[in-house]
């Protein structure tokens, strides 16, 4: 039922809009909100309350209270009073067993009262302990608001936009508009209602969620979160209408004046038939009610007592100063309260002003200003804390169903500060975030403790100012992945791809054991483009590297390679890789796949301190790398290059620039996997050419799993897998890399103090232990397994483990716990395969 055309109404009667509520077809108009269309269609009960499941109807019509939260198109907790009506939207009740009109859970309100006092969940259902999972399941079903939206149901995509403005005005009321118009320059106004035409920039409908340090204001606008960085912020958030405290103040039919005003003026809906007006602000809607043809049964500016009464949750009468009045609409106003939350977040002081009975912001931080009603520009007299009357439930907080009785009980139990009472009763912690209950709670506490509101104060204001979807804070779903230049080759070969850090790597191509055999017996090829690759160049480069690593590189001959471990000043292992000297002043450093950025930053940091004349350049992304390994490596590579590959001219640990299939490559003769091998580094754009030529020459692609088996057979350590933040060069048996005669290097000071609480050793066993399995000695944990694989070549299970130094002896027997049983393993200090490294040098 609509009223006849109202002056300035927002609905467009020539554009009807169809939508559904609980499966029923309904019609509204363009310009309606979901809430106004439902109300016009006769709906009065919009939701059930959080705890007692009491019927609730439209109260504020401004998106502030929790009363109209429904599920719209699968998205829960939509405040339908401000949600624009769109064609075909699907609106449903939430948090009910049945419907909002007939909710079986409403029984909690009838019988639950004595059993569910404030804080009952802290005291009940804690025994017997083993029944908790059952209690929890039941409670989880009853509690909460709505169901989390399914990812599939068309939330759309969330995005973040960054913006910078000189002046940001929050609030589009008269004060905000005037402030924005007065600014000469870059200004943006954010308005949580409809926008307006203006000479300045307007973002609407959009809500500022908070003010963070550095003038950062996150603003929610539909599915976009704006992160606005403002030089100056003008807060023009206005004032919030407050509810009065009296019995039955949550009944359907109790409304705030602004809600009534919007209902009649904007949507041409008749809010009720017979109204009672209570409070200074409520009397102001007489005009609207007269226009809407609502009979005014009674009105009182400052009543002594008031209670509201109803049937099945809907208002039927009030008892006003002892006199019963039948009505179906009660417009109440507890006055206005400046909306200071954003200012308090920014660091303003909030003080109580008894003359008008409001909290006002004072002592604003630099760069933040406040105008209009938010600054306290309100003329009113304070209202009583509670209007006593006959009746039962008098709600301080309608979000969380906290009654005056609950607050009194919290006080009686000693929770007498506002912050404690808040945590115990959850008052101010609901969806309205204190907009409707902060002032009421303070007033009530002041009355009950015989102090005044200044002594009670307010709770801490925290973002967000209004409920916000988690998706908006999370932003668009990103899973950043780094792909090597050879990624498509792996996909074509049907490789199983896995994550290693941010990299996507080929784990295996179908049969890792066969890949291992190919490397041992013939020829394998692995993509190692994920290795960190760094150029260090300049007259100071040799001295810089000498100081960054425990080993020495200044005596490394051009064209030669040396293994290096990066340690911290505490002597702990951070990363490892190879260093090839390409010229007198040019070094090519490789790092672990996940370590490249950290190592580059580490190198640059030390050089910011020392100032060696050297440049450090990360070329990881620019170059691809692949390792050709196996006994046939030389004969397969030879036809593809003009370079002399003879063992005497291209020795183990030599680095040479050669062309492979016409592509210039840096070839490093190193062998992580233990066979004759060439690690070929080439421009990323040409990697496919080299790869294809080597595969055509008979190389079998092998993946990470095969590489892990192969390197384990050699006893080669993977930093981060076999070492942790406590590992040092002594305990990892790599003391040979330390050149302690150098005057300084990072970690030198720690060398004399290095302790060996555990040692990293190899072991062989008959049963495969999981990585992380315990090494047990005399009934206590004496170490752990870091890597273990079945090795066909060795014929046993092989692995690496940290063990106590006393048992880190060649041939010692250690016990490893596998599936609860102790299994013997034998300590091996040398490599399991080709311990002399003759194959590498062949």
């Amino acid at each position: 039922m609509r009223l006849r055309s109202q002056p300035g109404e927002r609905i467009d009667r020539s554009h009807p809009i169809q939508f559904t509520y609980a499966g029923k077809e309904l019609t509204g108009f363009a310009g309606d909100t979901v809430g106004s269309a439902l109300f016009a269609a006769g709906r009065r009960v919009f939701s059930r309350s959080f705890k007692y499941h009491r019927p609730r109807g439209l109260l504020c019509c401004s998106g502030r209270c929790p009363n109209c939260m429904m599920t719209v198109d699968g998205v829960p907790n939509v405040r339908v009073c401000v949600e624009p009506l769109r064609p075909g939207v699907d609106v449903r009740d939430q948090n009910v067993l049945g419907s909002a009109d007939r909710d079986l859970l409403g029984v909690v309100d009838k019988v639950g009262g004595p059993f569910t006092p404030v804080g009952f969940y802290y005291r009940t259902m804690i025994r017997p302990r083993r029944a908790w999972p059952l209690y929890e399941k039941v409670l989880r079903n009853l509690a909460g608001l709505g169901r989390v939206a399914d990812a599939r149901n068309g939330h759309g995509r969330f995005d973040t936009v960054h913006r910078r403005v000189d002046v940001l005005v929050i609030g589009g009321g008269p004060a905000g508009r005037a402030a924005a118009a007065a600014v000469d320059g870059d200004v943006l106004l954010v308005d949580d209602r409809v926008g307006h035409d203006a000479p300045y920039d307007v973002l609407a409908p959009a809500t500022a969620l908070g003010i963070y340090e550095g003038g950062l204001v996150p603003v929610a606008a539909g599915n976009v979160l704006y992160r606005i960085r403002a030089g100056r912020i003008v807060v023009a958030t206005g004032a919030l209408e407050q509810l009065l405290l009296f019995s039955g103040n949550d009944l359907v039919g109790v409304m705030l004046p602004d809600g009534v005003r919007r209902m009649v003026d904007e949507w041409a809906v008749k809010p009720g038939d017979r109204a009672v007006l209570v409070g200074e602000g409520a009397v102001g809607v007489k005009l609207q009610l007269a226009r809407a043809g609502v009979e005014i049964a009674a009105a009182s500016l400052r009543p002594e007592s008031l209670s509201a009464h109803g049937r099945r949750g809907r208002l039927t009468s009030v008892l006003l100063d002892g006199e019963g009045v039948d009505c179906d609409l009660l417009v109440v106003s507890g006055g206005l309260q400046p909306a200071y939350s954003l200012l308090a977040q920014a660091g303003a002081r909030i003080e109580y002003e008894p003359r008008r009975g409001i909290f006002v912001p004072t002592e604003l931080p630099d760069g933040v200003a406040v105008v209009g009603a938010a600054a306290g520009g309100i003329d009113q007299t304070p209202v009583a804390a509670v209007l006593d009357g006959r009746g039962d439930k008098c709600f301080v907080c309608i979000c969380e169903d906290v009654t005056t009785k609950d607050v009194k009980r919290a006080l009686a139990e000693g929770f007498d500060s506002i912050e404690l009472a808040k945590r115990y009763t959850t008052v101010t912690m609901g969806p309205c975030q204190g907009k409707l209950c902060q002032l009421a709670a303070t007033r009530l506490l002041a009355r009950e403790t015989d102090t005044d509101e200044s002594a009670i104060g307010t709770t801490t204001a925290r973002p967000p100012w209004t409920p916000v979807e988690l998706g908006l804070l999370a932003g668009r779903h990103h899973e950043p992945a780094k792909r090597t230049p050879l990624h498509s080759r792996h996909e074509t070969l049907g490789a199983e791809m896995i994550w290693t850090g941010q990299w996507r790597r080929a784990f295996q191509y179908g049969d890792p054991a066969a890949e291992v055999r190919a490397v041992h017996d013939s020829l394998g090829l692995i993509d190692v483009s994920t290795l960190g690759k760094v150029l260090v160049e300049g007259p100071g480069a040799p001295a810089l590297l000498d100081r960054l690593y425990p080993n020495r590189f200044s005596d490394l001959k051009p064209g030669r390679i040396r293994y290096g471990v990066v340690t911290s000043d505490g002597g702990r292992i951070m990363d490892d890789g190879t260093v090839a000297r390409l010229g007198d002043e040019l070094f090519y450093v490789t790092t672990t796949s996940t370590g490249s950025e950290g190592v580059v930053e580490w190198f640059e940091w030390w050089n910011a301190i020392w100032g060696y004349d050297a440049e450090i350049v990360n070329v990881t992304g620019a170059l691809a790398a692949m390792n050709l390994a196996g006994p046939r490596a030389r004969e397969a590579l030879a036809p593809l290059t003009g370079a002399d590959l003879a063992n005497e001219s291209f020795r183990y640990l030599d680095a040479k620039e050669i062309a492979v299939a016409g592509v210039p490559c840096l070839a490093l003769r190193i062998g992580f996997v233990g066979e004759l091998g060439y690690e070929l580094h080439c421009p990323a754009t040409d990697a496919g050419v080299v790869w294809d030529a080597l595969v055509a020459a008979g190389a079998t692609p092998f993946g990470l799993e095969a590489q892990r088996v192969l390197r384990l057979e050699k006893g080669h350590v993977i930093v981060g897998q076999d070492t942790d933040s406590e590992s040092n060069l002594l305990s990892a048996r790599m003391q040979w890399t330390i050149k302690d005669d150098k005057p300084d290097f990072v970690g030198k000071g720690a060398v004399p103090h290095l302790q060996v609480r555990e040692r990293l050793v190899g072991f062989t066993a008959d049963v495969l232990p999981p990585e992380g399995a315990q090494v047990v000695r005399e009934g206590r944990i004496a170490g752990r397994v870091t890597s273990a694989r079945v090795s066909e070549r060795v014929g046993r299970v092989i692995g690496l483990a940290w063990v106590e130094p006393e048992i880190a002896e060649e041939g010692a027997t250690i016990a490893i716990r596998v599936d609860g049983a102790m299994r013997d393993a034998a300590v091996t200090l040398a490599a399991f395969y080709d311990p002399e490294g003759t194959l590498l040098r062949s």
Partner: protein
Amino acid sequence: MSFLLSCPHCGPRPVDEFRFQGEVTRRPGADASLRELTDYVYFRDNVAGVQREWWYHRTGCKVWFVAERDTRTNEVLRTEIPSPAGAAAPR
């Protein structure tokens, strides 16, 4: 944490563009006692007040610089690229 930090190259930028590397410390010589070494490696002054600290403009120009920041208010008083200590080993 959303304050602005002034990169010596790029000017004021949001703090999440930077990597924090902690207080500027005094690195002891290679002959440091275990106590001196432990102090340097593990202990920080953690002052409530102005502190000199290392920052790295990770998503920007990749410069290491030193900032003087009041840890109570996150007010950044000064940023500078320090002049290197030189290639000489510490005392």
